[in-house]
């Protein structure tokens, strides 16, 4: 695997060029161009604020900030998986006619989504300052969490992009699973809601929400970026950094497993696309 990685490093310029191409082409013929990347999260902020402030009237101050804080990394995950599923098939002509480390295809997709995510985070920070969220010292942990999520996204992208070359079902399966995850993961609600529910056993909640790296990461984004979430009935549960360490380890293992899986099959792609 180290040899594969060294070869990938040799081709870093191609990786860079493909990321740039992806970013350039996406908005090439649009008037607003790159601003679409910013406009999307801005419109999400506006819509979510209206829904939760004026329609649902939860009465929780800045609920939309808590929502967005998990929604943005969720979008990063979702787009990475969906886009990378088609990455090898989409570049079939390249795969059939040229030599280059195949992992560049899904990797460039995940990296260009990372850039969109970072832009969206920038908008999110402006929003936080506008609504007067106090600056937290834990903001310093953010790069580490983004990096852990990058590993996780890459690992899943390797599996999905590789399998999708052989089975079209993978793309559809991914759509179904992502739709389920959208509600199963603490995006629209807080993890505190789960632990305060009398219908879900504590141990089950720990397994589903803390041991699952994606869920734990979404929780971690909230905990480090926003002040504790407290209402009349719900009390904040602080982030247990041991679970974060575990999520980092799991993500790293998924990354390595995905890379190994991809590498073991990548030279048969040219015969299949």
């Amino acid at each position, binding site marked *: 695997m180290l040899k594969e990685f060294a070869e990938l490093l040799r081709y870093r310029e191609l990786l860079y060029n493909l990321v740039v*191409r992806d970013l350039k082409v996406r908005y090439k013929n649009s008037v607003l161009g790159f601003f679409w990347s910013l406009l999307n999260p801005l419109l999400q902020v506006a819509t979510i604020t209206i829904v939760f402030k004026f329609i649902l009237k939860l009465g929780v101050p800045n609920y939309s900030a808590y929502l967005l804080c998990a929604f943005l990394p969720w979008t990063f995950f979702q787009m990475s998986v969906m886009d990378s599923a088609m990455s090898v098939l989409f570049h079939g002509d390249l795969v059939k006619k040229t030599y280059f480390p195949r992992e560049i295809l899904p990797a460039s997709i995940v990296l260009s989504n990372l850039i969109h995510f970072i832009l969206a985070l920038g908008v999110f920070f402006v929003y936080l300052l506008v609504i007067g969220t106090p600056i937290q010292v834990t903001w310093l942990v953010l790069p580490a969490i983004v990096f852990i999520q990058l590993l996780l996204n890459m690992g899943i992208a390797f599996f999905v992009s590789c399998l999708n070359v*052989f089975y079209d079902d993978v793309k559809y399966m991914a759509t179904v699973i992502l739709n389920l995850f959208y509600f199963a993961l603490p995006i629209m609600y807080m993890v505190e809601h789960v632990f305060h529910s009398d219908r879900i056993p504590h141990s089950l909640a720990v397994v589903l929400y803390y041991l699952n790296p994606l869920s734990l990461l979404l929780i971690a984004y909230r905990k480090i970026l926003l002040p504790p979430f407290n209402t009349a009935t719900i009390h904040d549960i602080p982030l247990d950094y041991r679970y974060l360490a575990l999520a980092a380890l799991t993500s790293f293992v998924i990354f390595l497993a995905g890379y190994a899986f991809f590498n073991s099959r990548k030279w048969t792609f040219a015969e299949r696309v």
Partner: protein
Amino acid sequence: MDAIVIENLHKTFRLSHERHGSLKSLALSFSRRTHDYVHALNGISFTVPEGETLAVVGKNGSGKSTLLSTMARVYKPTSGTVTMNGRVSALLALGAGFHTELTGIENVYLNGSILGMSRREIDKCFNQIVSFAELEEFIDAPLRTYSSGMVMRLGFSVAIQVRPDILLVDEVLAVGDEQFQRKCYEKVRELQSEGKTILFVSHDLKAVSDVATRAMWLDSGEIRADGDVQTVLGKYVENTTAGDESPAAPAL
């Protein structure tokens, strides 16, 4: 020294008449899983000394492109070894990775990096690429505004700037109008005089006898003849025309 050493190379493709496009069809066929195999290359061995220009001829489906693709590392050999001593540039298709929405400039850099060139190398020969393609006026326009001939010319100009020790070419020399083709062949001669090793596949027998210093005839994944250009071409032509008129050939 030998630039290319091929030893007992086999390449077998699994032929699926109907690709397992879904898990369901895979599951259904698990019990009675039979495969047809296509033996595209059947134990090919040859060496190419440095500085030689080897032309590979043969009918469609004789394994020429598979041989080139395996040497270009697009396919892994089923068995046998491929040793390439030096930097390899493979022109199996022109303009790999070209995107119609990007400008000529952006595509040159993208295509160059796919062919394994660094940004600095492309910077150095960028003007040569543009002038060779005769696209000075259009290079900052998006590729979708180009004619197909212009796209091919640009693809060829980038490809020819990769300074390889070994150049693999799959029928991409017949690009553009007559004048541009003449330029292409001049470029090939220039590479020859620099002592580069060239291996090319062509159906254009005139080009083969003009450019090659050695020829090889592939048939059904095996070498039928190898050596002097005129001798090999003679055998090849004799066989193909004889085959057409052969009374033993099944009537269609």
